[in-house]
């Protein structure tokens, strides 16, 4: 475990900085998940490299907490606010509050359905679900028994990834979905859910877990049941342990949406905006399928 | 009673609790304007029948007629509305509400818009409290009242309801003589208003002083009903107990031992105990009397470490001892029987066996573990010795009648093998047969060299049992009285601060 002491270093920087320092707020939807932790790490890196003071909050997946966080952040004379919304609708009010105070807003990861945003940068979660579905179609030749493990029910990512995945599955006639369950993006819970699914289904050909944490949990269960060979498992996010699992032939695939660069690029783009440069209004970063073939080419973060 | 009208009539009432037939085809007749005593041993079913009359409990079978009409109450409210109210044996006050609120609980004076009129409520409460001869602020919280004050509030509460029948279940158990006199005055007045009173008490003298008729129950059965003036003490006791009871108090011929087992020197605690000193000799029963608030009960608990530290010195068998918590007191052979058995004496939700062994878990262990066998033996021994009426040692203590609960406390005390015992109101609510047993046990204990401090508001008991008396007044020892001068007059006079009467 590496410790989080980046923040304290930033504080130091802020103190010796002579000119007025640029302040950016980052309201994260959650930090209880490695994916989003990497987003914030990327943002921190971007801020540190450019001597920006960055304030990070964690909404713990609650839109109302995020609203509170944004209001609290806005008390600090920000130059720019970056928001990773819990929810596209619910964030509108918070963005409007920022608009009232003339603080420019960039949304990342998930777009807002209203309010004025200077730019959005993100992945397309539905597309990512599509990729997972298409991958299973490819390797299983469009035939087989499929399991889907969803994320936290009622959250936007979980909904979108599931939607994208099912778009493909629904039109693949040879696929039979034998189980659709939720494991709250949590590894331990996914293991438990997968154990139960394995009990009920003697034949399973493909499993899609909506994030890598759940994929790794499902992997534990599948491995313990000795059914590693018969099941194709795909996750999402390309976190380090799952890349490791791909190299070790345990996990077949994941989808890289390198969160680190999302966070970093959002800060860089924000700086450009503050410095009066033109910026693109809508940037969708690529989601790439990661398999054993390209696992070593994938760069997910920088030190 | 020919001139009086029958107001309440019960026939063939049976009440069955899980495992217990509390009432077996009993009957009872109550006339207007009479004071009717209901006598019986602990667990005879008195309270149960009263709760049935007041609507607090339902009966299994039988028939109840009130003012000539058949009735069956399903709540106390129904009974109250028809003019029946009850002072319950156990307190039914709400600790964190004020005195006034408790008096008017469920019957608050409200304005037209349904808003509680606090001013009126407090004023009415003051009047009612004054009626029972007390002076307590209506705004005081009930939790800050003494037991006796709380009992008087219960009485005021009952009086505030317009009733034709008032049931008093052991109203005097927690009172001192002063308040008892006041209660009797109230009862006289109620009688004049033609209100019927059902009166339960284990104090025989009260029965003869104020009641007109008496009904006797035994083991849940009706035994007899008669005019009080046509009977006497011995007959009632015989009907209650089922045999003769010759001597209530054992004959004590105590010669003072040279050995002082316990000595308190200059005990001071806050403003309540001011410089108290006394000695307790081996095998002695020392009675400590005092009016309400005199500090005698507090003193005993203080010395047993209930309240932590205090000023002054304690010598046990001549050696200095500092007792700061109950565990230390127990290890030095001191046990206090509290006057508040529900809160300080028993774990009501646990069974008899566990309660008896609670303070002496060490003695039911073998090889460092609790032994079921020893535990059973211990409780069986005490159940036999104290004649505790239980269906088995596994019975939950909360389901015992109060007298039997008190015996459980005694059993627990005896098992700690104490050398010095402080007894606070040891026979409160205990029937006369059981009283005699407890007095006998006290006597036996002292013969084995155990010393007892007896703190009681029951003066005949204090005089009957004590070898020597102290009277406390406002936190000080007002007098020390030797056995030959230990009379009611003397004690009362010292307690009131008037000096002795020769």
């Amino acid at each position, binding site marked *: 475990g590496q410790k*989080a002491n980046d*923040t304290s270093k930033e504080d130091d920087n802020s103190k010796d900085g002579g000119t007025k320092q640029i302040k950016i707020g980052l309201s*994260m939807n959650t*930090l209880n998940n490695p994916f989003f932790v990497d987003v914030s790490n990327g943002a921190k890196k971007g801020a540190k490299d450019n001597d920006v003071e960055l*304030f*990070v*909050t*964690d909404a713990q*997946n*609650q*839109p*109302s907490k995020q*609203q*509170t*966080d944004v*209001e*609290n*952040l806005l*008390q*600090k004379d920000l130059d720019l606010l970056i928001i990773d919304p*819990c*929810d*596209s*609708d*619910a964030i*509108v*009010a918070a963005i409007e509050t920022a608009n009232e105070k003339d603080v420019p807003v960039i949304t990342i990861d998930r777009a807002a*359905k*209203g309010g004025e945003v200077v730019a959005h940068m993100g992945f397309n979660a539905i597309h990512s679900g599509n990729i997972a579905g298409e991958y299973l179609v490819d390797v299983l030749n469009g035939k087989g028994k499929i399991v889907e493990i969803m994320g*936290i*029910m*009622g*959250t*936007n990512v*979980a*909904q979108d990834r599931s939607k994208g995945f099912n778009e493909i599955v629904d039109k693949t006639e040879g696929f039979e979905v034998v189980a659709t369950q939720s494991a709250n993006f949590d590894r331990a819970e996914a293991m438990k859910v997968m154990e139960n699914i394995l009990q009920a289904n003697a034949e399973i050909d493909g499993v899609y877990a909506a994030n890598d944490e759940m994929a790794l949990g499902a992997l534990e269960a599948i491995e313990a049941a000795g059914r590693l060979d018969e099941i194709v498992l795909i996750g999402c996010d390309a976190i380090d342990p799952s890349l490791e699992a791909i190299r070790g032939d345990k996990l077949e695939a994941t989808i890289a949406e390198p969160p680190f660069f999302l966070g970093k690029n959002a800060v860089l783009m924000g700086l450009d905006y503050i410095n009066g440069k033109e910026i693109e209004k809508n940037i969708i970063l690529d989601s790439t399928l990661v398999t054993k073939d390209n696992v070593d080419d994938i760069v997910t973060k920088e030190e | 009673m020919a001139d009086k009208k029958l107001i309440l009539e019960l026939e063939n009432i049976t009440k069955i609790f899980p495992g217990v037939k509390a009432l077996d085809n009993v009957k009872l007749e109550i006339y207007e304007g009479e004071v009717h005593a209901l006598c019986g041993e602990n667990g005879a079913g008195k309270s149960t029948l009263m709760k049935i009359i007041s609507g*607090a409990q339902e009966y299994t079978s039988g028939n109840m007629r009130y003012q000539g009409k058949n009735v069956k109450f399903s*709540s*106390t*409210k129904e009974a*109250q509305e028809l003019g029946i109210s009850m002072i*319950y044996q156990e*307190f*039914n*006050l*709400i*600790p*964190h*509400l004020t005195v006034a*609120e408790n008096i008017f*609980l*469920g*019957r*608050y004076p*409200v304005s037209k818009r*349904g*808003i*509680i009129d*606090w001013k009126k409520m407090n004023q009415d409460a003051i009047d009612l409290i004054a009626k029972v001869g007390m002076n307590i602020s209506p705004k005081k919280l009930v939790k800050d009242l003494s037991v006796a004050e709380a009992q008087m509030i219960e009485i005021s509460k009952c009086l505030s309801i317009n009733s034709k029948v008032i049931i008093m279940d052991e109203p005097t158990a927690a009172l001192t003589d002063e308040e008892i006199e006041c209660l009797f005055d109230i009862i006289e007045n109620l009688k004049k208003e033609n209100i019927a009173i059902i009166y339960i008490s284990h104090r025989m003298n009260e029965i003869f002083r104020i009641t007109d008729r008496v009904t006797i129950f035994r083991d849940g059965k009706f035994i007899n009903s008669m005019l009080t003036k046509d009977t006497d003490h011995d007959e009632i006791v015989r009907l209650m107990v089922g045999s003769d009871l010759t001597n209530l108090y054992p004959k004590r011929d105590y010669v003072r031992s040279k050995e002082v087992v316990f000595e308190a020197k200059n005990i001071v605690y*806050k403003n309540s105990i001011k410089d108290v000193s006394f000695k307790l000799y081996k095998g002695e029963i020392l009675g400590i009397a005092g009016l309400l608030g005199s500090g005698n009960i507090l003193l005993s608990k203080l010395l047993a470490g209930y309240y932590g530290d205090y000023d002054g010195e304690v010598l046990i068998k001549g050696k200095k001892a500092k007792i700061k918590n109950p565990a230390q007191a127990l290890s030095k052979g001191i046990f206090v029987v509290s006057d508040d058995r529900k809160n300080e004496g028993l774990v009501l939700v646990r069974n008899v066996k566990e309660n008896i062994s609670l303070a002496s878990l060490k003695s039911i262990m073998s090889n460092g573990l609790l032994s079921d066998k020893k535990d059973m033996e211990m409780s069986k021994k005490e159940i036999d010795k104290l004649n505790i009426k239980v269906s088995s040692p596994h019975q939950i203590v909360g389901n015992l009648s109060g007298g039997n609960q008190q015996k459980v406390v005694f059993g627990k005390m005896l098992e700690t093998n104490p050398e010095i015992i402080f007894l606070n109101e040891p026979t409160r609510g205990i029937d006369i047969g059981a009283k005699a047993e407890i007095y006998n046990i006290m006597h036996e204990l002292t013969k084995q060299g155990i010393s007892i401090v007896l703190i009681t508001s029951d003066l005949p008991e204090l005089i009957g049992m004590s070898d020597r008396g102290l009277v406390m007044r406002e936190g000080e020892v007002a007098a020390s009285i030797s056995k030959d001068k230990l009379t009611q007059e003397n004690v009362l006079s010292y307690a009131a601060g008037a000096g002795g009467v020769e």
Partner: protein
Amino acid sequence: MKKLGLKLLTKYRTVSVLVLILIIATCLSNSFLTFNNLLNVIRQVSIIAIIASGMTFVILTGGIDLSVGSIVAISGALSAYTLLNTNSVVLAIIVALIVGSICGAFNGIIITKGNLPPFIATLAVMTFVRGFVLVFTNGSPIAARMKAYNFIGKGYLFGIPFPIIILIVVFAIGFFILKYTAFGRSVFSIGGNREATRLSGINVKRVETLVYTISGLLAGLTGLILTARLGSAQPTAGKGYELDAIAAVILGGTSLSGGQGAIIPTVFGALILGVLDNILVLIDVNPFASDIVKGFVILLAVLADSKFKSVSSKLDE
């Protein structure tokens, strides 16, 4: 004089702790003690505080209500759905309040008729209702955008955010009910001694049912405010609110065993929690570490409270 000061301090323990925290917060950040920020904090707090006011009733009777968070979600969702389909703000408001009350009444009825422990009964209802919300919304938020509706959560009246006004009204009514109605007094007395209350002729079960209904109603009101504020009803709304609300009640000095406490301090309990959230962001505590600080401060707050309490009982002597 000094003693009087100390007495006031200890009598209003929760306020004292809050003031202490306010002073520290003011020292820590310039942005804290500004009119705007304070309004901001109170508006944020109103969500938990309103739920906590209903929870105060429940806890005073010796019960507990874990279902409030789910009730927030269901009433928000149904309210938004109504708005979307009827465009009637009035109807949307009524639906939120009625749905909340029905859920609360359901709690009350199963607890009293079924003789169930409130903890497990409301836990079951919490799970059940949450599932219902998910099915109803199919896991996706329902938008709720209409000026008049959103006013409930975002509007200002006389320069004061509307939720704060609702908060004040709710607590005023709550205070009044507890002090001046027979129902309110029964709430205390049931918590103090249920059996004695029954014997005094009070219909204990009816009072209890009503208490859970009130809690449900206020959770419904909160769902309404939250939805109006966010412009969207979230299927995950209100998760974990039950613990915050209970914490606010206890910080306000109301005893979990019932019978003792008051409603006004509950709002200060909620403010303690809210100010904490606010100041942690203002001084930019690492969000990972903020839980550490938060837990620690809550602990200090209850310790201070307990200390004040023992001082106050000594002063009484």
